[in-house]
């Protein structure tokens, strides 16, 4: 049991928190701007490289410089929206998806061009875990990730429940058409969506970088699991995305637990497929997701 918690459940939880934060941006863009943003993973990558650069410049802990990296990522997202998405706002949805597909590659090449492809680290070295209750082991950096993720999740919750713009975001994710008819400033909500999405993407990326390392394709690797999390939770449901992310993260890790005998339940080579499989299953049987999201 201890083994299960230490090596399957806790890693799943950390991975899940990272997916969850990323998926919030995806789910909100999906419902408010009405398109699947394939470039979301690259906002994440870019955010991590901002953070890495700041760590190099200041020598501070990545979590300390993270807010600045988040601001930079937000600025990037807003300018991308301005230059590439806004002109297509009234075009058929698919144009936006194709545009985001293109931006995904463009952003990644920019990162590779400026920062190179060499592996980097924001927090070198290893950390021995702290033993809790004699058998539970969790390392300090994982504690930090989980706590920071919780703080951000509460911040998102506060924003969505207690602020005017947050409520407008939820309203618009419920029904963009009605939001327009109600006089909600939809452009402002769109901007807020980019701000929230990009900031959380950056945070998720930095958490991943703290857990592993910095690499130019890290965002893309998370893209499909994040889509899966968004769809599992129900498109346009930020809380759904949180739950969806945690479920996908846990499922990926637990899928290779040797439930029967000593062989892994699923060949770990297929681990990456778990998220897709869950996503496709959800699309077939319950396209509105767990939290009754939008189905277009």
């Amino acid at each position, binding site marked *: 049991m201890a083994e299960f918690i230490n090596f399957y459940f806790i890693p799943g939880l950390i*991975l899940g928190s990272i997916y969850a934060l990323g998926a919030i941006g995806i789910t909100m863009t999906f419902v408010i701007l009405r398109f699947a943003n394939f470039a979301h993973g690259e906002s994440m990558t870019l955010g991590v490289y901002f953070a890495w650069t700041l760590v190099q410049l200041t020598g501070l802990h990545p979590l300390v410089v993270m807010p600045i990296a988040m601001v930079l990522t937000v600025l990037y997202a807003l300018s991308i929206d301005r230059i590439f998405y806004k002109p297509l706002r009234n075009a058929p949805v698919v144009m936006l998806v194709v545009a985001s597909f293109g931006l995904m590659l463009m952003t990644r090449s920019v990162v590779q061009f400026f920062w190179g492809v060499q592996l980097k680290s924001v927090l070198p070295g290893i950390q021995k*875990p702290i033993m809790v209750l004699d058998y539970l082991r969790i390392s300090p950096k994982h504690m930090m990730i989980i706590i920071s993720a919780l703080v951000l999740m509460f911040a998102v919750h506060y924003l969505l429940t207690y602020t005017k713009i947050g409520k407008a975001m939820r309203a618009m994710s419920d029904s963009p058409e009605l939001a327009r008819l109600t006089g909600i400033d939809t452009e402002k909500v769109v901007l807020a969506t980019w701000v929230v999405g990009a900031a959380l993407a950056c945070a998720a990326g930095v958490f991943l970088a703290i857990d592993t390392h910095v690499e130019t394709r890290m965002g893309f690797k998370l893209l499909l699991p994040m889509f899966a999390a968004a769809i599992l939770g129900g498109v346009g449901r930020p809380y759904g995305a949180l739950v969806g992310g945690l479920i996908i993260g846990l499922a990926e890790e637990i899928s*290779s637990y040797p439930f029967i005998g000593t062989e892994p339940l699923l060949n*770990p*080579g297929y681990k990456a497929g778990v998220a897709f499989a869950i996503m496709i299953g959800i699309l077939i049987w319950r396209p509105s997701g767990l939290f009754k999201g939008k189905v277009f």
Partner: protein
Amino acid sequence: MKILKKLAITASAIAMMSVGAQAAGEIKVGSAGGVTGPIAELVAAIVKGRQVAVDHVNSSGGLLGGDTMKLVIADSACDPKAAVDAGNKLVNVEQVVAIIGPSCSGATNGMVSSVTIPAGVTVLSDSATAPSISELKDNDTVFRASASDAYQGKAIADLVWKAGIKKVAVTYSNDDYNAGIANVFTTEYKALGGEITGNQAHEPNKASYRSELSTLNQGGPEALALFAYYGSSGITIIKNSLENGLFGKFYAADGMFDNSVIGQIGADNLKGNLWITQAASDTEDASYKAFAEAYKAAGGDPEAPYAAHGYDVAFLMALAIEKAGSADRSKISAALRAVAGPEGEVVRPGEWEKAKKLIAEGKDVNYEGAAGINDFDKNGDVTGLFSVNIVGDDGTWSRSMLK
């Protein structure tokens, strides 16, 4: 249609430029590599190695009657489609004498089968290690300076067995290179009498491998045989293992060899528990030292995986052209065999003037490369020498030769 016209003009402008760029007194050698794609971080160091060799050649007399050697880069992206296209450009547009690279076995396989073998262009790869390349009907035009996986897999198996370890778990990144070595290792280790307690592929680029490692830890393995690239999964696996006390000893192949392993995990954490074999010559060897010095001077880290091989292939190719006496494609293959040894006077990295003189005098030369002896067998493969690297007391890699 206006756009079409504009595009047509641009395209023809591009074509014109490429025609105009044929400089006199320049001998072109193709330099194919996965500049973009999954192992881009390794390729950058390899390409640098090639360039350092070319700089040596050009700064000490150049090729033949003073021609400069020019490497033409082409991105094979570790993808056979891109590699075939890259090969076509090098062979037909750039009209290169021969090609060094590409880096991935798959890209090499596609490029040589579809382009260079039919065209009769000699290819010398620095890091393609798949055994299937040996079996191609290549009219003796495909060579490589790195040993086929078969050799290194066996070397690691011997190393582990001699260390008195009877039970190991194996995990490998599911790509052409690592899957191949793991396969050989498993067979050889079992043949020696060892027990493989678990053998699992892992998908590279995941955030965590804790669950895989926990499963692999079943059955009491004494060490983990880890076949991965350091960037895409290797470092994460060692970190995860050490942090969670899952494995304490690691045996790895050269895809894991990089300074960032020490940089990211920390030397103290790795002392006495990590062994990485590498196809490279002795660091005490004069050949390696000459290379390392030059590579460092060029601002690189000479210990990057296959950087030495990159140097060797470029230098060997220069020797072959010199030996052939002209930039004639059809003569390169035979010349390459001649300059690689084993007969003849030993030439080491950087010793271009000496080599040039020997060749001019009609004497045989035997290039002893930075990464090994470089004597080709009948398939155009090298057996290679292997070294083992551990983290030394000073916190850097410390190398000793195997056998």
